């Protein structure tokens, strides 16, 4: 009972401090809001956030293949209506035609560069965000079974979102092309074994048929995650506002955990903690009250920011129970990490230094995924490094939830967070009890 009284008193004090309220709610929302409007949203468009198209310089060195010397004909790829492939004599030209399609006009503005050096120079001069270099054997590699090739991307290191979008688009196309290649290879082999050799036009028709059926729901396997309302969550990996708000939420939740736990030191310095010890109140009740206050404050902060993000910024955090699990992990980690840090400090002056330094560094490291915007393929090392700090574990759970991961996929990360929290709490509680025994 007394622990609750102490917790309620602490929470009342926290929410009466304007600085704390601004820090807990104002700054995360302000930062997210700034990005929200900076990235061009804020209008009535509920489809998402229209962004300025990324300038792409493309160099087509593809020498084509005799199989495609007659052009692609009047083929049409589903979802890419309006793409004229009739004159395309190489897969490089197909790629360019797709990137120039009206469907991608909002995302990409394509400029054909004469050579690789010019394209790279445009990126260096920040006239383009990305340069795409299609190799000479691109078509050959897609048609001949044993041939391999590499599509090169050269990107402005200062940009994250635009290059990530281009990378994602190209990855998707290459996956489709690779699928077509495998299909073609298997089909040709089967037909040859059956004594029915296939000419170039027929091979092309088979490949195009594969590409045409790629987007047909009746013939492909789909993975669709649903929110409790039945809305498809889809792939949220590139929801930049979600990623930014998630990062801010975690960054500032850890500050809240530390600042709320610091009330133990503040009370010690102001004489109210020693006075509490002169009342018939046990040390366990006093510390318990402090921990409850930290947890409840964090629950309030995290819940509010998640709800605000969903309702105002339209951020799909993922399935309800996945988000709850991720949020619970965050609350536990932020609270116990705060208690652990405070138990190492002698006074609030040390607290200012530690919170300013340690929390900022570990926070930045933990939410590094926010800065790479989900581009994990080239940042696996950073992804692993981020797990060295508790913020990284919280970010991983939330990212998974935003990516539409199931409860089962998040559980191991929650388990890790629980384990870390247990360790932080054990050490923190032990040290504080020893100190005030």
């Amino acid at each position: 009972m007394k622990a609750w009284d102490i917790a309620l008193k602490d929470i009342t004090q926290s929410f009466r401090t304007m600085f704390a309220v601004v820090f807990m709610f104002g700054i995360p929302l302000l930062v997210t809001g700034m990005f929200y409007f900076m990235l061009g949203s804020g209008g009535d468009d509920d489809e998402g956030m229209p962004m300025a198209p990324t300038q792409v310089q493309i160099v087509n060195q593809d020498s084509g293949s005799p199989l495609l010397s007659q052009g692609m004909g009047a083929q049409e790829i589903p979802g890419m209506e309006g793409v004229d492939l009739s004159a395309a004599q190489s897969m490089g030209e197909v790629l360019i035609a797709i990137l120039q399609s009206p469907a991608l006009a909002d995302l990409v503005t394509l400029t054909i560069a004469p050579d690789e050096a010019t394209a790279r120079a445009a990126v260096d001069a920040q006239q383009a965000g990305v340069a795409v270099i299609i190799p000479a054997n691109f078509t050959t590699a897609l048609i001949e079974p044993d041939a391999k090739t590499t599509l090169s991307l050269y990107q402005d290191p200062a940009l994250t979102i635009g290059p990530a979008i281009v990378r994602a688009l190209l990855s998707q196309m290459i996956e489709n092309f690779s699928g077509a290649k495998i299909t073609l290879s298997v089909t040709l082999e089967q037909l040859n074994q059956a004594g029915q050799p296939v000419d170039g036009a027929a091979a092309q028709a088979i490949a195009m048929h594969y590409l045409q059926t790629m987007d047909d729901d009746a013939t492909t396997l789909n993975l669709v995650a649903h929110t409790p309302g039945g809305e498809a969550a889809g792939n949220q990996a590139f929801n930049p506002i979600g990623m930014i708000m998630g990062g801010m939420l975690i960054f500032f939740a850890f500050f809240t955990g530390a600042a709320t736990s610091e009330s133990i030191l503040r009370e010690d310095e102001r004489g109210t903690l020693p006075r509490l010890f002169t009342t018939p109140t046990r040390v366990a009740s006093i510390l318990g009250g402090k921990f409850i206050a930290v947890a409840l404050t964090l629950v309030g902060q995290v819940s509010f920011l998640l709800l605000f993000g969903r309702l105002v910024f339209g951020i799909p955090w993922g399935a309800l129970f996945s988000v709850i699990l991720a949020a619970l992990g965050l609350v536990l980690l932020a609270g116990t990490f705060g208690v652990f840090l405070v138990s190492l400090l002698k006074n609030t002056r040390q607290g200012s230094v530690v919170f300013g330094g340690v929390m900022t560094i570990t926070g930045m490291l933990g939410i590094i995924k926010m800065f790479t915007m989900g581009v994990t393929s080239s940042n696996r090392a950073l992804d692993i490094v981020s797990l060295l700090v508790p913020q990284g574990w919280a970010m991983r759970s939330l990212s998974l939830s935003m990516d539409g991961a199931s409860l089962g996929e998040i559980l191991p990360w929650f388990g890790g967070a629980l384990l870390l929290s247990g360790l932080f709490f054990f050490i923190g509680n032990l040290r504080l009890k020893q100190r005030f025994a």
Partner: protein
Amino acid sequence: MPTTAIEVQNLHKSFGAVKAVDGIDFTVQAGEIFSLLGPNGAGKTTTISMISCLLRPNEGDVLVLGHSVRKDPQAVKACLGVVPQEIALYEDLSARENLTFWGKMYELRGELLRKRVDEVLEVIGLADRQKGMVGKFSGGMKRRLNIGIALLHKPQLIIMDEPTVGIDPQSRRSILESVLQLNREGATVLYTTHYMEEAQELSDHIAIMDHGKLIAMGTHEELVHIVGETDRLEVTLSAEAPQVIETWKATPGVKQVTSVDGHISLLVDDSNLVLPRLFEAVANTGVRLTSVDIQVPNLEAVFLHLTGRALRD
């Protein structure tokens, strides 16, 4: 109620090599005001910290209303009201919120808590400011609230650690009056101070501490008796007059005369009887008495007598 409120037995407390309290014993009777008097650093706060279970003694024990601080600290805390030296309040809560919170810590709940908060607000004169944030209160108001918290659960024993430090004379007077009133209502008060006048005015018994030890203890009269029943006269003359000093030395009732740099100090049995004789002795010498200061024996003199230092040194 036991007749002995506090029994301090061979109490020791050291911080590293520093002996803050060095084997003290004393007893506080129920219903009295007992003062611990001593300069800063004498060990008063350490002593009451051990009595109120904030510090654990290295040696010895304290029995508070029969409960040992070593064996049953929760029972000790339940019958104590402690007023700390520093103001220990939540500045971002109102006076009423502060009292309500602390009342809960003293295990008051519901209607009883509300009633006691109302009563204490009246006693400390903050009923009309009960909703005001403590951070905006004056120093005197904070001091009164600081005391009020210790009264919430109607403790049998109130410990006050220098409650008048750093406040204006009016608030100080008000606090001293409230201590006397509490005592009249039956509370036992253990009061620490380094102001001799406060100890003298309030206390039934006084213990003088210095360097962690009790150097004297008793009623005011008993302590003064230590330095003998003599008054001290500090006198200055308009000119040097050795013959006057010699005459004074021979005057009945004068025990001792010393002269340093024109300031003459006399120890006399009774200043009321001796002073006219001193004036008579000066009358025919051509010099005048330019100042006379009469000092009756007090605790300052006792401390000076026992330690060779002034209490405020």
